[in-house]
């Protein structure tokens, strides 16, 4: 057992040397350096590096999620101890704090783990984000020991990342009243939107990698409504997207921009500046327009402040 551990340590060292001596982008070295070589009596194997093209070799079609958030690099490292379940660290450089936050919000289930700038833990898996990095630490079998080590690894990586990142600015336009702050998602494209909340099978909101969007839950489980904000390059693009949505989603009320859906709840859309704002599943027509007003008021307030500067 000792020999295996020593071999693994040598492997890890060799892997680190390879990472340091290969003519690779500095980003890989930097990313790899955030991950400790050992944790407890576990030692790590050589790290593997993937980019947005090669990620499919590692995690199959799930790589589309990270590509949807413009991932730059992934360093993956497996920790081993003889006779114990392996631990796996996947540390992503997402290129920006907004996308690190966004990919973290892709899966919000679990308990708050107090790691990085946001984290959760569920079924042996710790996920967190900090600065432009998204990390995942996974125990192949959850035991009291592996759970402790997963948290320790997460905290060590958190401690090694020096900076902090800003959350996406769009979040400031979400009215705080009734907002479920733990159910806010940031994304770019319609595939991720549909993953969280199916709107339509075609891209009626004209979302793409250049658009920023936020989907937020409001109310309690029994009275759940949603706000969707999408930011486009300019007002013309937003107007086009708003009209496209209204035509497809509420053809009977496209001009009015508000409709009572088949479930008896209200959906409303409004275009303001370069933004499209939509509320779903509001209990009353007035509540729908009030929430749109509240979002737009926050946008106007920010616009006013920008003008003052």
């Amino acid at each position: 057992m000792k020999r295996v551990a020593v071999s693994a340590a040598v492997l890890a060292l060799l892997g680190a040397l390879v990472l340091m001596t290969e003519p690779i982008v500095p980003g890989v070295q930097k990313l790899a350096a955030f991950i400790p070589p050992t944790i407890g009596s576990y030692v790590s194997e050589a790290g593997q590096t993937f980019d947005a093209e090669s990620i499919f070799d590692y995690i199959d079609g799930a790589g589309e999620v990270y590509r949807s958030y413009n991932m730059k690099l992934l360093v993956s490292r497996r920790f081993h101890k003889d006779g114990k379940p392996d631990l796996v660290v996947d540390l992503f450089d997402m290129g920006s704090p907004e996308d690190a936050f966004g990919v973290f919000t892709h899966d919000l289930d679990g308990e708050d783990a107090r790691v990085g700038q946001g984290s959760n833990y569920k079924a042996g898996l710790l996920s967190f984000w900090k600065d432009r990095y998204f990390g995942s630490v996974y125990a192949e079998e959850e035991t009291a020991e592996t759970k402790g080590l997963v948290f320790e690894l997460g905290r060590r990586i958190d401690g090694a990342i020096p900076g902090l990142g800003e959350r996406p600015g769009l979040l400031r336009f979400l009215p705080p009243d009734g907002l479920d702050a733990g159910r806010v998602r940031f994304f770019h494209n319609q595939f991720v939107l549909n993953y969280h909340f199916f709107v339509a099978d075609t891209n009626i909101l004209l979302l793409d990698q250049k658009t920023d969007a936020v989907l937020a839950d409001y109310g309690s489980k029994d009275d759940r409504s949603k706000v969707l904000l999408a930011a486009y390059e300019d007002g013309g693009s937003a107007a086009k997207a708003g009209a496209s949505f209204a035509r497809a989603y509420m053809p009977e009320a496209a001009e009015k921009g508000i409709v009572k859906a088949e479930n008896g709840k209200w959906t409303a859309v409004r275009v303001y500046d370069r933004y499209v704002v939509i509320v779903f599943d509001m209990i009353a027509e007035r509540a729908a327009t009030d929430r749109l007003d509240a979002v737009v008021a926050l946008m106007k307030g920010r616009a006013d402040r920008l003008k003052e500067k």
Partner: protein
Amino acid sequence: MSRKPITRRDFLKAASVAPFAGALIPVAARTGRASLPGRAEEKVRVVLVRDPSPLGPGGAPPAEVVQRMLDDAVRALLGEGDAIKAWKTLVRAEDVVGIKTNAWRYIPTTPEVEQAIKKRVMDAGVSEDRIAIDDRGVLRNPVFQNATALVNARPMRSHHWSGVGSLIKNYIMFVPRPSDYHGDTCADLATLWDLPAVKGKTRLNVLVMFTPLFHGVGPHHYAKEYTWEYKGLIVSRDPVAADATGLRIIQAKRRAFFGDDRPFQMTPHHIQLADTRHHLGVSDPHRIELVKLGFEEGILI
């Protein structure tokens, strides 16, 4: 459980499938598999076989049990009393046979299933040097490059992008860039079955249901907590029918575990579209004759 009204979101979801749903389906028109039905009233046969034997550390029953399960399933599928005779109707001695497996780290096809298939292919008269078992290397594998017959074997699991990993999807390694098929959450995976390396060659599909994954988390979309010991194999000549049957079991498990009709976050619509849009096989349970063998406890279907 309360019945929710159909909303415009449901309508928009169904729209991609519905235009073809009512049409008479010329099944297997592209696969060249004559045993599949050509008229709506005909049914395709799918065999579900289960065995209560304990699973080994690799997640499979003992090899001899797997062999017996496979033999029972193939005999029932083809209505043949002898397993080797049944296999001889699937492959010929002069065939070059690729056994397309799945090497996913957490839930692979398992060596027990691979070897059980290989044994019967050899029993049917194919020499060992004309048989290969492969997943990610199929494009470089000379046996697969020259294959005249394929046996498709993989486990079913929930999948982050396609809803479920399916038999239909298992042929994605026959293209150099799998991501080319990821559009609309893998809606058109059935077109893989038109590739020259694949078209018309599949003799049998084996969907491994020993420890299916019904929900996933994290980059690897895996947590042992979301697997269970189902101890089954689903066998059919029709990959769509086998997948549709496996999907029903996974959905039933999700209902039992979560306590509600929780939808897959990525809809596994590629299975239904393989039927309604691409006519690869049958997804409608009413057109599937499901033969159940073995123990029934916890069968979920």
